[in-house]
C-alpha cells in the first residue's frame, strides 16, 4: 500500500463487509418485489397453499365449493373447514397431490360449459 494511504482499521473492514451484505440483500429483495409486482393483479389465480381451506380455494378461484369437495372425494355437506395441510396429513398424502387434484378439477370446470355455468361466483 502507498504511503499516505494507511490500511483501513478492522472496524472499517467489518463495516464495509456489512454494508456490502446489506446492499446485496437489498438488491435481492428489490428483484423479488419487482418479479412479484409484475405478476400481480387482483384477478389472477392464487397459488394453492397448505393453510387454505376448500372454501378459501373455491372463493379465490371462483368455483363452487362442492366441486372441490368432490375432487377430493369428500362429502360436500357439511363443508369441510380443515386446512389442505390437515387433509393431506390425515390421508397420508403429500400436499402436492391434493393441489394437483384441485387444479385439475378447477381447470376442467373452466373448460366444461355446464360446470362453468354452475361455477358462477357467489354474490
Amino acid at each position, binding site marked *: 500500500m502507498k504511503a499516505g494511504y494507511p490500511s483501513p482499521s478492522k*472496524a472499517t473492514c467489518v463495516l464495509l463487509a456489512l454494508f456490502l451484505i*446489506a446492499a446485496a440483500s437489498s438488491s435481492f*429483495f428489490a428483484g423479488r*418485489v419487482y418479479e412479484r409486482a409484475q405478476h400481480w393483479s387482483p384477478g389472477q389465480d*392464487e397459488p394453492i397453499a397448505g393453510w*387454505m381451506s376448500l*372454501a378459501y380455494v373455491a372463493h*379465490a*378461484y*371462483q368455483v363452487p365449493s362442492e366441486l372441490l369437495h368432490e375432487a377430493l372425494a369428500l362429502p360436500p355437506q357439511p363443508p369441510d373447514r380443515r386446512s389442505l395441510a390437515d387433509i393431506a396429513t390425515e390421508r397420508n398424502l403429500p400436499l402436492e397431490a391434493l393441489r394437483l387434484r384441485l387444479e385439475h378439477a378447477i381447470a376442467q370446470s373452466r373448460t366444461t360449459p355446464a360446470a362453468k355455468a354452475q361455477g358462477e361466483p357467489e354474490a
Partner: protein
Amino acid sequence: MTDDLVELVTTHGPGALFFILLANCLGMPFPTSLLLMAIGSFAGQGEMSLFPFVLAGLTGAVIGDQAGHLLGRLGGRLIIARLAKQPRARATFERAERLIWRWSGPGIYFSRWLLAPLGPWVNLATGISGYPWLRFALWDFFGLATWIGLYVTLGYVFSGSVQRMAELSGSLTWLLVFTLLTLLLGWLLLRRWRAATLERLENRASDLQD
C-alpha cells in the same frame, strides 16, 4: 408453520391470535402478515366476525411490545449500574441513548408495521435508553393499530389473493429494512472515510510545517 397458525386461529378463535401476536411482538418470527390477511379474507367471506379478532390481536400485540420494552428497561438499569465506574463507556452509552431518543417516536411507529422485523429490537432499545413509557405506549398503540388494521383490510378487500399479497408485502418489508440498513452503514462508512481523510490532511500539513 403458516398452516399451523391459520389452523390454530380458525379452530381456537381470537384467543389463539392473542397469544400468536404476543409471541410475535416478543421476537418470534411468525408469518403474521399472512395470518392477519387470511383473517380479513375469512371475515370478508362471512366465515368469522372481524371485531373480536382485531381486539384480541391488538391486546396481545400491545402486551408483547410492553413486555419487550420492560425487559429493555430492566437491562438498561443493569447496564447503567455496571458502567458507573467506567466514564468513557458511560459517555458512549449516553450518546447512544440520545440518538435513540431522537429517532424513537417515528421509529416506534414505523417498526410496528412498515419495518416490522425491527419491532422487537426497537422495544428493547427504547427500554434500555429509558424512553418515556407513555410516549412509547402511544406510538406503539397507533403503530399496532395501523399494522393490524392495514393487513386485515387488505385481506378483506382482496379476499382471494391473500397468498400472493403476503409474498409481495413480505418481500417489500425486507427490501425496506435492508435499504435502510444499507443507507445507515453507508453513512457510517462515509463518516469514517471523511474523518480519516481529514486526519491525513492535518498530518500532512503538520509535516510540511515541520
